[in-house]
């Protein structure tokens, strides 16, 4: 048994000292020479070998190179012939050496931006704005000594000029392919260029158009609470191609009425050749300033840029939208609707008068602090309110002709005016 083990160990050490090559059936020893195979000129052929771990590896000869060294002892030799013909080189691994041989078949050398490409190489047309054309030139060079006939050329991108097939390239000559593509969406778009069955990857990146600086224009000289303001977004220059962006609104306070036509965000487009944003069917969008004082921030976001504009709505006296006094039996009801953009406790004065306009009693003042506080804590409607003040009348209520109402907050007093009773 010990003799068998010793023989196996001896055989293993002999194998370890040899150069092995990877095949479909695993690694096998090579002799003093090894044929790596054939490839078309310009296309690499990689062959994986295995030698003693840590040995020096070198290859000497045109068309061959050591591609990668992979522990433990594996390495790749690349056969990359530039032109048609037979090639050989001396591969040395430590104290061992092998003659490697290869054959190059004639094929056009595909050159892009001055660099020869091998099969599977990338032809990148770069980045262009969506809707604009990217183009490039690919050269098919014949570096062999005889004419090359290319029977087929296909491309997922367009040929800017028609290609006559079969294409014959004389020795030392070259043919030109002009490729063009217009990305219709942002992002990477890829395709395949096939030249006599050899494929190359085509790439182009569509980018969203960059726009010139935006400007938010309003139709109001000053912006206050309770307004509906028309906004336009204008750009310094016309868009070269159709572009898009968003208008976003932020508000420092709590008021759902502060909004654009479409809420807090509006999408817009800029047609090619225009410098005005389109919101659906309109060049304008509405900004509702709401019923609470605060800072309204608008942001115009377009690819690669952001422009801001702020509007400060300042505290103001109570605004009354509707006021009405009615007689309901033995009571008089005063109904007011409006907003207080300070959301404070407004005080009110009521002065009743008879039908001749003579005052009835003194001015009644009331500041229902708790009611206001409770209302604003729960209403969820900014500073907007509707109130009913009910006055019981002793005597003939029909003799009351009018009531003059004023309402005041911390900023100032609002004269609602005289409300006639029907």
């Amino acid at each position: 048994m010990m003799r068998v083990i010793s023989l196996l160990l001896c055989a293993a050490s002999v194998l370890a000292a040899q150069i092995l090559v990877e095949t479909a059936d695993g690694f096998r020893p090579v002799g003093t020479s090894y044929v790596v195979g054939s490839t078309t000129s310009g296309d690499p052929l990689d062959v994986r070998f295995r030698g003693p771990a840590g040995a020096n590896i070198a290859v000497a000869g045109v068309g061959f190179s050591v591609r990668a060294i992979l522990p433990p002892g594996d390495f790749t030799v690349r056969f990359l012939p530039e032109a048609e013909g037979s090639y050989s080189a001396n591969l040395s691994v430590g104290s061992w050496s092998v003659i490697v041989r290869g054959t190059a078949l004639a094929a056009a050398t595909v050159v892009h931006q001055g660099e020869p490409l091998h099969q599977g190489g990338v032809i990148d047309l770069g980045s262009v704005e969506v809707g604009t054309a990217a183009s490039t030139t690919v050269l098919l060079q014949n570096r062999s000594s005889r004419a090359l006939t290319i029977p087929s050329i296909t491309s997922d991108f367009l040929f800017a000029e028609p290609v006559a097939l079969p294409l014959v390239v004389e020795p030392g000559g070259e043919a030109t392919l002009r490729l063009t593509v217009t990305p219709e969406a942002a992002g990477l778009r890829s395709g395949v260029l096939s030249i006599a069955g050899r494929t190359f990857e085509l790439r182009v990146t569509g980018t969203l158009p960059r726009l010139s600086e935006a400007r938010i224009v309003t139709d109001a000289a000053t912006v206050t609470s309770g307004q509906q303001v028309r906004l336009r977004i204008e750009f310094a220059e016309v868009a070269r191609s159709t572009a898009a962006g968003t208008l976003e609104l932020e508000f420092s306070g709590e008021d759902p009425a502060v909004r654009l036509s479409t809420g807090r965000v509006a999408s817009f487009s800029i047609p090619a050749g225009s410098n005005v944003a389109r919101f659906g069917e309109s060049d304008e969008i509405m900004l509702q300033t709401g019923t609470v004082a605060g800072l309204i921030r608008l942001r115009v976001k377009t690819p690669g840029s952001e422009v801001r504009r702020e509007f400060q709505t300042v505290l103001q006296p109570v605004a009354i939208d509707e006021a009405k006094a009615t007689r309901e039996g033995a009571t008089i009801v005063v109904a007011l609707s409006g907003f207080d953009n300070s959301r404070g406790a407004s005080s009110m004065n009521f002065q009743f008068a008879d039908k001749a306009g003579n005052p009835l009693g003194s001015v009644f003042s009331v500041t229902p602090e708790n009611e206001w506080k409770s209302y604003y804590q729960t209403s969820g409607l900014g500073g907007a309110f509707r109130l009913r003040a009910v006055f019981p009348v002793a005597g003939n209520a029909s003799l009351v002709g009018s009531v003059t109402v004023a309402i005041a907050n911390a900023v100032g007093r609002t004269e609602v005016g005289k409300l006639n009773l029907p």
Partner: protein
Amino acid sequence: MRYLVFFISLIAFGQIEAPRIGFWRDAQNRVRPLHGVAGSFVPGAALREGVLAFAWYGDGGWLRSETEIERLDASGATVARLPGGAVRFSETGVWLTEQNVAYRWDGESLKNVSVEETEFAVPEEDAEAIAKDWWHVRLRGRSYAVRMTPGREARFEIPEAADDESD
């Protein structure tokens, strides 16, 4: 006049509430409340869907669905029904235009009345009443509230409802 005595205790002053203009039908045929005051609107959540025509006058209104016409009371409850079809509304009247028949709501039931076309006039084509003196019109894909209060006529845009912003 001086003998009038006012008891100043504002017995019902606690009635401070969120203002509401009225109700309207949005572009998706949903009826919604329109909260707020003029120019500061907040559309509320949809209350009815599939509404093909609508009118609200503050203390009642009308609604046409695919199958019928409904008279609504001040709370929005249906108090009377008619077969569906082309229709025009007024504050208390309904005109079935294909049959050229009109009915009037008298507070208790619908009574057949003669058609007076002027009663059913609207300030703009396809306008629908939102409230007394308020009308809703649609123009280039947007909704507007038109105030017809004498001396205070104005047109305001109704912003999209919060639950409609992704539509």
